[in-house]
């Protein structure tokens, strides 16, 4: 069977491409070549992994900072204070904002050296993570846009 079937299969009629397919491919490849490279081309999978790591570290530091500032035993009191601030802001927004700003400033001045170091570090890590993740999204999006669409020849 093999010999005869092999022989027949080797002589199957070939499908021919449309006459201008090669020319269209050349044009499409040149178009792709001339397309501006994405400014976010550096953001790949490794960046995404690093961004997730930085984000997790930022969240953990922020959580530790909050725990240091308000230990769990003080949470009911903190919740009551939070609700009181919300009610104040709801009733007198302008006055409430001024008072809140002043209160935060007072708290900031009360922070110790370690607390003042950890908070910016956590916020910086979170900001870096968000920027890197956004860059990865943009890189993937611009990559999709620069690919030739499916069905362009059909």
């Amino acid at each position, binding site marked *: *069977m*093999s010999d*005869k*079937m*092999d*022989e*027949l*299969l*080797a*002589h*199957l*009629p*070939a*499908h*021919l*491409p*449309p006459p201008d*397919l*090669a020319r*269209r*491919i*050349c044009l*499409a*490849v*040149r178009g*792709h*070549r001339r397309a501006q490279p994405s400014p976010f081309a550096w953001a790949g999978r490794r960046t995404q992994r690093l961004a997730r790591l930085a984000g997790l570290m930022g969240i953990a530091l922020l959580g530790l900072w909050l725990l240091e500032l308000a230990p769990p035993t003080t949470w009911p009191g903190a919740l009551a204070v939070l609700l009181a601030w919300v009610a104040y802001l709801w009733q007198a927004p302008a006055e409430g904002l001024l008072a809140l700003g002043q209160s935060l400033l007072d708290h900031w001045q009360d922070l110790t050296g370690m607390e003042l170091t950890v908070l910016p570090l956590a916020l910086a890590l979170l900001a870096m993570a968000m920027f890197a993740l956004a860059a990865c999204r943009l890189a993937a999006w611009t990559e999709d846009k620069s*690919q*030739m669409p*499916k*069905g*362009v*020849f*059909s």
Partner: protein
Amino acid sequence: MMLSVSLALSRLTDAHAEMHGDERNLIARAQAGDDVAFDALVHRHTAPLYRVVRRMVGDDGEAENIVQEAFLRVWINLSRYRNDRPFFPYLVTVAANLSRDHWRREQRLSEDDLDALADLLPDPGDLPDRLVENAETLRLLAEAVARLPEPYRAVIALRYDAGFSYEEIAVALGLPLNTVRTHLHRAKAQLRRQLEEQIR
């Protein structure tokens, strides 16, 4: 007589070497950013690649997309291409990967389905003697190939349209060598059965 045969053989070998040398030269120029050289490679290989891919996917539009995508991927990765390897098998391997993605997306048949299908097939024997190679037989066979499940079609296309060895097919499709042999055997058995039904 012997002299003329050896002269002809030597000319053939020279032509073959010249073609490969020319291709290596084109690839080197394309790697250096020469658009014209890459265009020449596209023009040289579009028809043979289309023939293989069209047989694999069984659809004109999809075949054009895969051929286009294959050339684009080759162009993007051209700087990493090692110019001492033959170019066409590399191109076919890229296209075969894309075709495999295509049929995986379609998910028409799993390996289990293929095994179940194979149980229904007779053992391959000799083709009937009255089945001679003519245009009508080849047309019927081409139609039968088009009706094969995608993995079988791919193996047939790579073996007979691209001229790949079993090992090259295994690499191109990411399949174990034995699976390639099994697919090819089963594909031929299925084709034989379909041909026999057609000419009965």
